[in-house]
Structure formats: structure tokens, C-alpha cells
């Protein structure tokens, strides 16, 4: 490995400060999976299209396969492993399990992260806007779509109930 191109990058992952030494253009996804052993963010297309690798960067859903490590320097990354630490994340993940909103489950974590990021915003994103973002950022091949939408509704109801 060409040591000259490597540098230490500091970031926060699931609330923990970490420093990673890797090539600056190394995709964030590769760092999460290989260096930090957080494998719940999936390898999908590696070109920022399918969304299986979605994580939250300072609370916003991003596709980690298409984001170089240096773009995450000094910022807070949340992966599926850490998503349940917030009320919205826990509500979304539990809703997906309650609705059995998966078949193979490979795309599901990316969808959970997208939905969690959008539902955590103030004011919360509307259902229609969440679906519009899913259209742009997440793919599912097994056809779990109808269940994903039911899980979305359940999570929104849970959070609305919790706030009421």
C-alpha cells in the first residue's frame, strides 16, 4: 500500500470517536465494514444507486459506498448497529420487524436508515415526501414494497403516539 496517500481521519461512529488510517478516497462503506467491523451497512452497487449502504451523516441519510472517508472527517456517522439508540430509529426498526417488512432483508437496513433520517427531522418529513426519497435512493428486488410502506405507517404512528 502506498503509505503517502494515507492519513488518519477522525470521525464519530455510533456515538464513539474513532480514528481510521486509510486512503482518503476509500469509500466510507469499506471503512465501516472492514476497519470498524460494522457490517450491517450492505455492499450493493458501489455506485450510489441502490441505497443498501445507507447510513446517517450528521443525521442525514447518505450512501456510504459513494462517499469518500475524508468527506466524513469530523462528522457523526450512524449505522444500523447504532440506529436503535434514538427513539425514531428504534421505532422504525421495530416497525419493520413487526410488519415482517423484508424478504431477503438485504436492502432493508438501507431503507431503515433513510426512513429514520427523514423521520428524525423537525418538522418530520411527510409520508409522501419519504416515499419520494425512497424512490430516488433505495431499491428492493424481492418486492417487500407494500410491507415497507406498512412499516413506515406503523413507525409514524408509534412516534406520533409517543409525542402526543
Amino acid at each position: 500500500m502506498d503509505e503517502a496517500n494515507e492519513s488518519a481521519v477522525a470521525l464519530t461512529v455510533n456515538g464513539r470517536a474513532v480514528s481510521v488510517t486509510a486512503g482518503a478516497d476509500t469509500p466510507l462503506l469499506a471503512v465501516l465494514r472492514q476497519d470498524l467491523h460494522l457490517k450491517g451497512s450492505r455492499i450493493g452497487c458501489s455506485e450510489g444507486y441502490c441505497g443498501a449502504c445507507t447510513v446517517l451523516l450528521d443525521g442525514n441519510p447518505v450512501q456510504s459506498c459513494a462517499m469518500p472517508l475524508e468527506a466524513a472527517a469530523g462528522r457523526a456517522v450512524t449505522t444500523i448497529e447504532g440506529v436503535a439508540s434514538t427513539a425514531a430509529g428504534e421505532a422504525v426498526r421495530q416497525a419493520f420487524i413487526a410488519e415482517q417488512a423484508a424478504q431477503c432483508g438485504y436492502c432493508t437496513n438501507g431503507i431503515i436508515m433513510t426512513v429514520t433520517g427523514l423521520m428524525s427531522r423537525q418538522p418530520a418529513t411527510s409520508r409522501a415526501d419519504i416515499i419520494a426519497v425512497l424512490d430516488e435512493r433505495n431499491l428492493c428486488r424481492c418486492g417487500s414494497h407494500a410491507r415497507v410502506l406498512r412499516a413506515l405507517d406503523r413507525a409514524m404512528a408509534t412516534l406520533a403516539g409517543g409525542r402526543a
Partner: protein
Amino acid sequence: MSELPSNLKANPLLSRWISIDGPAQVTVHSGKVELGQGATTGIAAIAAAELGLRFDQISIAAASTIDAPDEGITAGSYSIEQGGSAMRWAAAAVREIFAGAAARQLGAPAEEIEVADGLFRRRGRNETVSYWQLRDAIDLERSALDLPAPALRGGSVDHEGLQRPDLPQKLSGAAFIQDMTRPGMLYGRVLRPAHPRQRLESFDVAAVQAMPGVVAVVRDGEFAGVVAERDELAAKAVAVAARTAVWRTETLPADDGRNGWIDGVVPKSSTTFIADETAPGPIARRHAARYTRPYLAHASIGPSCAVAEWTDGRLKVWSHTQGIYPLKRQLARVFGLDASAVDVTHAHGSGCYGHNGADDVALDAALLARAVCAPVMCLWSRADELSWSPFGAAMRMQISAGLDPSGRIAEWSYDVWSPPHLARPGIGDGINLLAARSLQSPHASSADTDAARPQGGGDRNSVPLYTLGRRTLTHHLLHQGPLRSSAMRTLGGHGNIFAIESFMDELALLAGRDPVAFRLDHLDDQRGRAVIEAASAAASWDASDPGGEGRGRGIGFARYKNLAAYFACVATVEVSDKVRLLTVHAAIDAGEVIHRDGLINQVEGGIVQAASWTLKEAARWTPDGFAARSWADYPILSFSETPVIETIVLAPAGERPLGAGECAAGPVAAAIANAVAHALGVRVRDMPLTPDRIAAAIHALSEETT
């Protein structure tokens, strides 16, 4: 069920199926694998019911050639029908052996022994003895062939409330083969052409070798790959190989989007497999039409992946294959090993809908691992996933029929042309692993094969359940065409049911009958009639609805393979520049229900996937090679395009479970096409029903009427 199930007959040792592990766990070793379809949940629920266990007392072992029964391929909607029935019998036999030991221990007559939660007791008594207490005294190395037929309790545990046990882990962290690691594991990527008829001549080996993290550049004949310390470095290095590669290219026939290339080929065989001798009655009107289905991509979200490890001349592979034993035997042949020197263990992969790249990448990984003497995980790129996973085969269907003066079908002639729908490892005598043909010492793949009737391949579901008068049915099996084709969910069923059920609507129009009534006029099968009636009632089918003005509804029906689940559905659509699928009301009869939510999940997923195939998908090519190399080139159904789905489960009492995983695809395709025709007054007969084709159909109609 009184006959020993075939999969148990072939693997009669009870210890192969079930092990009583301590302190409170029973492990089921099904040879059927989890493909994301939830089959192993159903099989475990069957075992729990027979053993007298709670579902949480069961764990599901990864299927491995080291210790699992050889149940062939996990495909064809047979997991519950065949794998489930074998597991049921094996579990019941184990329960009876343990119940006998419990009776002796408790000093009770065997017929008074009951079991629940893994505890045996004499009826009405409190004293118990468990599977785990009895375990050491019982030998499960016993053959089911030597035991009397056990009493089957039937059913499954908690089939209403059961949840998939694999999902919580999948929805929290590492769970898939891509997440595996082995001590010292390296990462491999393979160089594959961007054109289906291209062979590797050379590439800049030194430039690839000089890339960061590269451990080895592997070349064996026309097979080439890179092994690196990290996956993303292997991917970068192989991109350099691709940029510098020199290829030898053969030309392809042109792709006109309607399978016109079929005109230029001579079929390998043309088999007229039904030719009724009955004399035709008087024919009042005749009608004929031609339909097509393009090649379709599996397009799994996760790229194909395998891990291979060589130790002292023995090969161990982890794979998301559908067939651990066929893959084991094929790998052994490629490497000139005795089959006993190769083991394949299943690991969960991304959604599998048939013969995808799982087996091919296993050979890739084994070749790369052999070169570096270290465990290697090989991963395909998105581009290769969309190009080199075998495709669902292209099809052309030609139907002509005659109606008698009363409007009933009196004559039916059907021809289907299609390249192979079945080219799996283990089918035919060749090696059906992609890299094998490219090696310095190449292995030929099997000659063109297809699934045999009655299940059929290209001719799957080509025989309607309807009463059709005099029938002539011919299957034209083509040689492999421009793209490599093999098994994909329903094989020929999607195309054939699309054609037959579209044509039934065309005939109904000609006969002046409502499409639902016209189907029932020609259908004696009571279970078939029941799903059509249930789906049309759920959709509030209105026979007098004239359709038009961009809104329509249509019905589709079939019994999958004419052997498995019955399925009917009504689709409603809104058609403007494109087709918007609004609702699907479905009715399924899969006999006894093992896992209700699992069944509904398969139906819902099948509906969405079939809508995607039918409205959006076609694997195409250009003179430069594969047309789709990224998701941008191969759109699939999005969340906002999802219809509202209602599923009615008919579960007639006393019927055995029928395979259900694939039953929706064909009827959904036809229901959509029929709804579009109802909305537009003109029919689109070529899939996918894209905006261009809708516009062309509307244009043609307006030309006709002006």
C-alpha cells in the same frame, strides 16, 4: 400421507435431519436453503409441531454438505411440499423414538405419553422427562427405512403469529455471506467482458500488479482475476485490468426489443407434446395473436459472493447457492478432485429468484484462493451482476383458436419458442460454472437443456386448465441465444400465462362475454374456479364496466406448473403516458397453510416483482455488448409505483401444502395487460408494457379510427 417422502427415502438417517442439542435446543438440518423466501421458517415450524416443541426451542442449521441431507436444489416452489414433508416425517419418527424411551422411564404405556415444550409426560400426570434428559440414551443414527410409518401430528406451530427468526439479526448487523470473514482472508475480483461474446486476449498485468494492496494477479486461460488485501482495492485493480484489456469479439444478432432474433435460428428441437385426435367442431370465428417476453435479469441487490479456502488439497466453500450438493460435485470435477474432498456450506445471500451468479462466483473464489494459498472472498461487481448472472430466457408465444357458434373455444393451437430455462450446475453432463469454459484446460457447459414435463421449462404452464376443444401444443427449444439463460422464478410460466390469459380476454371480447364469465365457462376445476371467484369478488368485479378513458381492470389466473398453488388476481390500472398499477386483489389456494404471513409475504413480493418485470424490465444488448451495466440502465419498480395489495388465502380443509413461491408472476402479468387493454381499447402484446409501447398502441388506435 402414508408414503415415505422421497427426500427422506434418499437420506434416511434421522441424525441427518435432527439433532437434540443441549441444554434446551433442537437443531433442524434441512437440505433446503434460505433464499430470503422464508422457507426454512416454515420447515422449522413443521419440525416443531411434530416434535412437540415451541418454535423458540428450534434452531435452523446452515445447510452444509458436511452434515445436511442431500435435497438437491431449493427451487420450483418445492421447499415446503418436498422438504417440509420429509422433515415432518423425520421429526415424527424422532418424536416416537423419544416417546418410547419416555414411556419406559415414566413407567407408562406408550399410548398415554404426551409431549409439549419438549417435555414428555403421562397424560394427567406432572412428572416429566425431556428430549435433553433422554438424549444420551438414544441413537438417532437410525434409518427411516427401518422404522414403521410414524403418526403425523400435522400442522405447524403458531402458523398465524410466526415471525421469521432470521430477520432481527439481518436488521441489526452481519448476517450475509458478504459479511463473512475467515482468518487471513483476502479479497478477489474477476475480469469479465462487457459483451456476451467476447474473449480475453490480454491486459496490462504489470499495471494491475502495481496497484495498491494487490497480492496476486491470477490468469488461467481466458479467466483473469485479482486478489488484494481489501475488497475496494481489488475492485480498483480489476478496473485497471478492464481499461487495458484486449478482447476478441464475435457479432451478435440485432436486438429489436421483440425477440426478432428468433426468426434467424433453427430450434434444437420442436416437440408437439399435445395433439388431440378429436375432430374439430364447427368454427364460427377464428383469432390469432403473438406475444413476447424479453430476457430478464435476476438483479439481486447484493452482488454474488463466495468464500473459498484450500487446506491440504481439500476445498471448502461458503456459498449462497440453491444447491450445495450439485455445486460440490461440479467444483470437484473442475479441480479433478474426489467429491469427498470438497464441502459447500450455505450462507445467506441477497434475494435469490433462481439460478443467478451464486454458483459461478464460487468457482471464481476457488480459483483465486488456490492461486494465493489463502481464504478468498470473491465478489462480483454490479455491472457483472447485471451481465453475467444467467438471465431468465426470452420467449415468443403464438396462439390461434377457433370459437364455435355458441362462443365456446373449440380449437386451440399454441407454439412457444424459447432458449433454455434450465442450465444449472448438475443439469446435463457439462460443467455449468461460468469460468470453467475459459480455463486453460476448459470444461464445456452442458448442451442446451430444459426442464422436463410435466413441470416443463419453456413450456411450463403452457397447457391451460381450461376446456379448449381440440388442442395442439408445440414447444420449440432453441439453443442458447444472445444472452446466457437459465432458471428464473417461474421459468416459462411468466411468458406462457401472460400469453394465454391475454388471449383468453381477446377471445372473450370476440365472443361478447365478460372475461371472468368466459373463463368460468371453460373451467371445470373447482379450486381454480374458487380463486377466480374470490379474487373477482374481492375486487368488486363489474361485468358491465366498459373501461376506457384510461382506467381499466383485468384478471389473470393459473395453477402454477399445473401442479402447485392456484392463484387468481384482478388488477386495476390508470393509463396516461405510462401504466400506473393501482390495486391488485389476489386469491390463493396453496392447500394447508404452514406459515400464514410467510405465504402472504411470498404472494405480495411475487405481485410486486411481476409488476416490475411486466411494466419495466428487459435485458437488452447493443452491438457493443450488454445494454445494462448499472441500475440506471435496468429500472425496477419503485415504492411510489407499488399497488395496494389485498390477498385472500383460501385454505380448503384436508388439502396438502402446495408450493406457493412463484404462483403470482404469470397471472399478475396477464391481469395488468388485460387491465391496460380494458383501459385503452387496444392491446399491448410485447412485454414490458413501457410508455413507448403504450404510446404506439394509442397512436395505432387513433390511426385506425380516423
